[in-house]
């Protein structure tokens, strides 16, 4: 009861705060950051005002009728029941209003469907439950995961402004450039939506859809997956960072460097603690959703890693599972989305953590082994 009162008070406070600061932004669509999004916003407002006017007119007429013709002593109700002229009049009226709305809608639609080529092309792939971005011309790419901590999601840490709308690695695009997105999915249907670009395009396995944008000013734009894609559908946000073309080329060069660096890293000598550190971070980012914080999973769907026969004693099979996934189960292959270092580290971590090292063989795995695994397959 006390909780309820507390909440209703905070509700009232929150609402008044909202209104007093004229939070129209929180009530309406964002005009967005591109010319197209602004045109769609304009169209939305036009249709909204027309609908608002009709709504108010109908409700006022209704209120008037309800008041004026309430039952009174000695007043007999009329008994007319038809008027063809009236019916035709308002049918024509509705048709005219719809034509007025259809004209701007059609013109914005034609602008949205612009199939000119892009200056750069980015392949966006939806996965359960993260986005993958690949820069087609530069042949670099990465995965973008939710970075909001589990503590915040479980109310153990305070939430901040970008709660659930933050990622470990945002998509970076250049300003003043026509960016074309090729959108597909790896498993189920997802939908890539950035409200500020007015792009919402379904990502469908086996099909490639397109969207495009042209951003004028640098900025950070946030969106979310908008097609139910399984249990963590609400946890795969999109963050796009628009930067100047100069900054963008630095970013791409860094990415290319990192790709080369990654190959070198696998030659290095590794200590267990280094591997454990990277392994823990990798586990938190990629594995914790299913296998859970303590490694115990949610059997039978997500098996426990604690005391598991494979994790304890079968190193070869352990590597194989990470590289190939498990047929017919939720475990996917991580060969493409994690680096050799990360895979080696996360295997090492799971073999060492939660007391596994004490009861199992506790063997560590170095990045070279993963690289060898890959090369042996070739």
């Amino acid at each position, binding site marked *: 009861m006390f909780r309820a009162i507390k909440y209703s008070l905070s*509700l009232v406070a*929150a*609402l008044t705060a909202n209104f007093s600061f004229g939070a129209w932004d*929180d*009530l309406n*669509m*964002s005009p967005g950051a591109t010319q197209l999004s602004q045109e769609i916003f304009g169209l*939305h407002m036009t249709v*909204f005002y027309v*609908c608002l006017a009709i*709504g108010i007119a*109908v*409700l006022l*007429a*209704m209120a008037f009728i*309800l008041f004026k*013709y*309430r*039952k*009174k002593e000695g007043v007999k*109700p*009329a*008994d*007319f*029941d*038809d*008027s063809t002229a*009236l*019916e035709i009049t*308002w*049918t024509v009226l*509705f*048709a005219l209003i719809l034509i007025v*709305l259809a004209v701007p*809608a*059609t013109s*914005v*639609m034609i602008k*949205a469907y612009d199939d000119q080529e892009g200056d750069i092309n980015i392949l966006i792939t939806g996965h359960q439950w993260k986005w993958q971005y690949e820069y087609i011309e530069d042949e670099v790419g990465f995965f973008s995961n939710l970075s909001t901590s589990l503590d915040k999601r479980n109310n153990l840490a305070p*939430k901040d402004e970008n709660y*659930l709308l933050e990622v470990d690695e945002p998509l970076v695009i250049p300003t003043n450039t026509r960016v074309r997105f090729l959108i597909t999915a790896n498993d189920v*249907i997802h939908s890539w*939506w950035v*409200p500020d670009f007015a*792009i*919402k395009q379904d990502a*469908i396995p*086996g*099909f490639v*859809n397109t969207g495009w944008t042209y951003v004028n000013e640098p900025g950070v734009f946030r969106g*979310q*997956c*908008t*097609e139910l894609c*399984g*249990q*963590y*559908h*609400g946890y795969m946000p999109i963050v796009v960072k628009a930067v100047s073309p100069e900054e963008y080329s630095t970013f791409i060069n860094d990415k290319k460097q990192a790709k080369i660096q990654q190959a070198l890293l696998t030659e290095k000598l590794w200590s267990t603690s280094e591997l454990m550190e990277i392994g823990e971070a990798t586990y938190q980012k990629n594995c914790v959703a299913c296998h859970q914080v303590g490694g115990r999973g949610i059997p039978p*769907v997500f098996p426990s890693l604690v005391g598991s026969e494979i994790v304890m004693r079968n190193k070869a099979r352990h590597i194989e599972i990470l590289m190939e996934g498990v047929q017919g189960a939720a475990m996917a292959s991580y060969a493409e989305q994690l680096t050799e270092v990360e895979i080696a580290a996360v295997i090492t971590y799971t073999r060492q953590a939660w007391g596994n090292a004490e009861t199992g063989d506790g063997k560590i795995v170095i990045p070279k082994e993963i690289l060898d695994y890959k090369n042996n397959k070739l």
Partner: protein
Amino acid sequence: MSAVIDSHHDDHHHGPAKGFSRWLYTTNHKDIGSMYLWFSLVMLFIGGAMAMVIRAELFEPGSQIVSPEFYNQMVTNHGLIMVFGVIMPAFVGFANWMIPMQIGAPDMALPRLNNLSFWILPVAFGILLSTFFMEGGAPNFGWTFYAPLSTEYAPPTVTFFIFSVHIMGASSIMGSINIITTILNMRAPGMTLMKMPLFVWSWFITAYLLIAVMPVLAGAVTMMLMDIHAGTSFFKAGGGGDPVLFQHIFWFFGHPEVYIMILPAFGIVSHIIETFSRKPIFGYSSMVYAIASIALLSFVVWAHHMFTVGMPIAGELFFMYSTMLIAIPTGVKVFNWLSTMFKGSLTFETPMLFAIAFVALFTIGGLSGIMLAIAPADFQYHDTYFVVAHFHYVLVPGALFSLLAAAYYWIPKWTGKMYDETLGKVHFWMSFISVNLTFFPMHFVGLAGMPRRIPDYAMQFADWNMMVSVGAFLFGISQLLFLFIVLKCIYNGKAATTEVWEGAKDRGFEWTVDSPAPYHTFSSPPSMESLKSSS
């Protein structure tokens, strides 16, 4: 088939049997109607409890009471139960009770089929609900069950879900065949099609929609079943199929389906407004044509649910224009209701209050529907809470309010007793306020960018969501009051007159028989002359 009708004539003058077997074996349209209505009331509370879980989870940002997986099961089953377990069976219940009485028939044309079509319904929902206790949990892929989430990536219980949908479909189809056959063959002499009451007309058209699209849904789930168990590739891209094909087939069923849930409401509201305005319905024939044209248009608008799947522009424009056209007959209906009230002599009993709220709030839902029809703007609305607001405005203060209005309107005829008018009005005002508190702010969070079907949300949506949750809890409590009012009416209501509502006896055959209506209504067909305004 004639044997069925004959056997019915044999027990014509017996009263109902006693005990549970009365209900199990009954072929009486009133018994079956009552069972449909009680069934949907029970399902309303089950589906409503799921809505309460959803709103508790969304009360504040952060994980609250259930896991994301269970949240998806709640969202899915809330949708399935409300659509197939509440709104549709409730309308069938009213059809069973009222169609024979309104057309002057002794019973439905196919009474045994009628019994069967009801009794398989609890079986279907028993199967669906039992999946909650199975390994893998209940269906979790949304009531629209898009492939491949509902096929390759579904929990193993999907097979039970498919079976359950088949049974629900069979029930609806049998019910519809019965309704059409009854309407075509059992009208009182002199009742031509264009003299039928509007509720009968609306159901006549709805029943045709049902037998046209429920088999298509059955086909869609059969294809799913084959993809899952028989290795076919209807919806598997890897085998040459197409997941988008599923959406086309689903919405070819799904859009007529949403009109199935609203057309009978149009009929009900027309009767109530006419009665409490003490004035004949305005534009009877245009009402009939409007319902028919909405039904026909519903077959050519389906892809407006799919504006973001990547259709070619010609497709987008076609479905945008066809969808906008629906506004015309719908607008005609709203204007006709206003004109019926114009220069009437209005009183505001509970059924009328719900009917007026229906017209007002359905108009809001209709207007947001026009906004959603505008394809480029829909890129921003699609799959957000704006859509959730829209369809709840047409389904809750739309379909559900019309059902409540109808229950208050006809319950004195069924039970022979009056409900408590004061409590009825309290129920109305509580429902009216809380329904707006629940669904109106959803427009705002939707426009501000909150996707639907998410178990947790970003901070900027927090205030409105809390308000929505408070509204939803209030709305839930208000419906418990309805249950109390119904029980109080049955056990403790004041006796109702034959006419029940002032002047009603001129408006339909149902108001010319005793209250409560006798177990077998018309032993000989009533005459059209007994109705003054038979238009």
